[in-house]
């Protein structure tokens, strides 16, 4: 028990509950247990380690793997049965019959536990499967218990007809202290990770291995990251990335390992910037600079080999990503025109893009209506579809110079569609083709900046 609690820290209460419910030896098991709790709260770990500790016969089914019930049945039976038998288990009836056969043959009264991880997936299957598993005990002679592990609460499992109610357990999230404790347990691996990547002298190494240093780092780290994220896995990953940076000045002998305030000043901007990368899992170590001065006059030439880099770029900053596209001049205007067409109502086109649109009569009511509903702004409702001729009309309106409508120009629209900057239907008839701009405002303003165009001026929402 002691050993188990060291292995599964901060879950004493839940472990005790599980031990009590599952009993020991050939005690009778409960019918079913329902375990819920947010992601990364140790649900699966607890159940698995308890079962291993009790040495019960058990199968763990990850429901995400079971796209048909058949796979699940076969998984359960092959997990319980020692000998391999090639039988097709198609229905629940096959399952219960075989379980009964196993009971007579090998298992007898010994407890059997079937664990369904990610049980929320069971909802997409036939609705009677979940209700049958909830009362599996009634359906076969085994001393069997089904455990459902999911991140949803029980109320999210809507049963039309009601079912046999399971015993419910809840796993709360780790709080700040517990997170600290758990991450701190892995101090060794953090240090090792650091030592692999960096050459370190022995005396500095000693400094680094001091637990106080790591504790200090963790305090600083959690004070920034605890607010937006409570996912242990993600926090651990981010801590690992940032600890290396924290230690860099120590390794370079720039900051003394005991000078905490200086270290804090060093790390806090880094933490802030890496907060941006939370969940995104981009390694900054491989920062790639796209070769400067590369001229791609043709948009088709967006190099494929650069794709991975550009993806990273996008995730680091929309702005640099937008610039990395290096679209041709007219294509940029076409893209802007597409954005304007998507986010402006068509009836306002005249006022926005024509020089002599006549006087705007502002009625008080209109003004008030417009001011009130910020939630109904076009920029918040998402892009609307537009036709090709509207796009071209806006394109010519925002472009100062006069150019002819060439096939080259039209090909650029196709390019933009190809690049997934504009979503377009695969319509051959140009008159009926509908388009939609699918890039955001940040992207467009970055593009517009490069051609010296003010997008805000032409957006109805900002007028």
């Amino acid at each position, binding site marked *: 028990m002691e050993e188990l609690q060291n292995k599964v820290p901060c879950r004493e209460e839940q472990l005790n509950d599980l031990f*009590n419910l599952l009993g020991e030896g050939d005690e009778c098991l*409960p019918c079913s247990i329902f375990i819920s709790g947010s992601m990364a709260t140790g649900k699966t770990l607890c159940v698995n380690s308890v079962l291993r500790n009790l040495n019960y016969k058990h199968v763990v089914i990850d429901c995400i793997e079971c796209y048909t019930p058949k796979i699940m049945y076969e998984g359960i039976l092959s997990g319980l049965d020692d000998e391999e038998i090639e039988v097709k288990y198609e229905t629940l009836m096959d399952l219960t019959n075989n379980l009964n056969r196993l009971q007579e043959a090998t298992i007898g009264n010994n407890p059997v536990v079937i664990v369904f991880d990610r049980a929320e997936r069971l909802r997409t299957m036939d609705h*009677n499967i979940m209700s049958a598993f909830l009362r599996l005990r*009634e359906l076969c002679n085994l001393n069997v218990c089904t455990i459902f592990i999911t991140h949803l609460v029980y109320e999210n499992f809507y049963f039309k*007809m*009601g079912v046999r109610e399971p015993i419910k357990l*809840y796993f709360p999230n780790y709080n700040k202290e517990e997170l600290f404790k758990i991450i701190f347990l892995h101090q060794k691996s953090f240090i090792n990770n650091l030592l692999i990547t960096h050459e370190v002298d022995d005396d500095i190494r000693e400094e680094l291995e001091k637990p106080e240093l790591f504790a200090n780092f963790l305090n600083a780290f959690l004070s920034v990251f605890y607010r937006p994220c409570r996912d242990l896995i993600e926090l651990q990953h981010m801590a690992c990335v940032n600890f290396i940076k924290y230690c860099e000045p120590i390794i370079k002998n720039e900051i003394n390992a005991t000078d905490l305030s200086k270290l804090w000043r060093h790390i806090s901007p880094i933490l802030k910037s890496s907060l941006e990368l939370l969940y995104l899992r981009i390694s900054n170590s491989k920062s790639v600079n796209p070769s400067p001065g590369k001229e791609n006059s043709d948009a088709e030439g967006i190099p494929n080999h650069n794709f991975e880099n550009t993806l990273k770029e996008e995730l680091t900053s929309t702005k640099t990503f937008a610039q990395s596209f290096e679209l041709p001049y007219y294509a940029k205007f076409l893209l802007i025109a597409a954005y304007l067409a998507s986010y402006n109502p068509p009836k306002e086109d005249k006022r926005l893009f024509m020089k002599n649109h006549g006087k705007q009569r502002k009625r008080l009511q209109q003004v008030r209506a417009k001011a009130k509903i910020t939630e109904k702004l076009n920029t918040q*409702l998402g892009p609307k579809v537009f036709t090709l001729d509207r796009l071209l009309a806006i394109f010519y309106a925002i472009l100062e110079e006069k150019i002819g409508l060439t096939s080259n120009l039209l090909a650029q629209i196709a390019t933009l569609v190809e690049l997934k900057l504009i*979503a377009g239907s695969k319509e051959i008839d140009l008159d009926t083709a509908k388009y939609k701009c699918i890039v955001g405002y940040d992207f467009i303003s970055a593009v517009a900046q490069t051609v010296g165009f003010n997008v805000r001026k032409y957006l109805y929402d900002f007028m």
Partner: protein
Amino acid sequence: MCGLASENPLEVQIKLIRKYLKLKIMADNISFRGHSQERNHIYDLFKRTVSHGESHSALMLGPRGSGKTTMQLENAVGDRVFGTFAENLAFLLSCLQSGADRRCKSMLFILEEFDMFCHSGRTQTLLYNLFDITHSEQAPMCVLGVTNRLDVMELLEKRVKSRFSHRHLFIFPNEHDSQRAPQYKYKDVLVQLLSLPVQKTVKKKSRSRRNTVSDDMEIDAALENSLPPHILARYPDFDHLNPDFILDWNQHITGMAEDYKLIDCLEKLCYYSVNEQIFRNILFELVSKLSCDSPYIDVSDLSAIIDKTVAPEHRVKLLQSLSILELSLVIAMKHGMEIFDGQPMNFEMVLHRYTKFANSNSSTQTVPRPVILKAFEHLQELEIIMPVKTTDSIYNGSETTANRVQKEYKLYTLAVPNEDISDAVKNFKALPTEINHWFNNSVV
């Protein structure tokens, strides 16, 4: 069990008691209480089918956990119980076909989850055939449907209805003793389930003079608190139970049953549910807490478990386990939906409200947009917010060709009730004051 001999005798006893009681609570679905009238009715029906070769059909209805299955299980002992599960259609059909040949034998069909048979046209054909045979005088058989849907008759097709005998048996958890409050019934069950059998001492007495009929009755009475013998046979080691200990335990249970606190918490449970299965689950949890350190059942334990079961508030706990950012998004969404009369919102709208709040409070850390989007998706994964599938919202009513919408613009509604959110905010640990303030001063 010999291996345990070296251990503390108290521990052994406690373990045995725990095991026995667990077994009694979970495995014993054969002992039977109440509903004598209905029971006799079914028994009569079955008897007539078996002995006189009559054919019958009946339907048993009642809410979940009211003992329907138990009732027919008890009656069906001796007969073969066919197909207790709705899936084995094929099996049932083959029985049906062979049934015509075996004219001499009576058959008993018990269709559990009867409503499952009513869904598609194909299975209704089966019901029709089944009921039809009960009229054809070929094979004596009895069809008993068991369901918890009270409206099951409306589901049946007309032709099926015409073949059905319209014999209904309604079973409700406490219809007979309506003058007694259900918590007293629960108390009886509790005492009955938690008491240990004292058969050994009494048995000896009755064995000496077992010729008369009345003695047999006495044995029955003595064994009342015991498990049915065929279950007991699987677990031989209960013989190690110390009789003195059993007496002591039973006294403890009856003593506890007199406690008015016990009645109080049972009454509370009855407000929520009269489902006996749930009650058994509660007793199971209670019994599993028994150990050397706490060899007796405590009423406060029971009330704690009842509180946990009837009002689990897992959703509030789930909300409380969100990060501050995620909770802020939930609050932003709640406000937005209050302003627009429950119209669904997309990510941009929520973000707009959130940034409005974040900008007005300089103390809050600013979080970049992708992280907020991720938090939003996390909420979606936990089904705290749900995507709107219908197109009747004002936003996309005009857009019939609404081909795939970007995720920022997908519309969501809040899937948790407002009360839960306010509960969660109230009891949130270490919630920044400005968020609490923002929540209470709702509409900006």
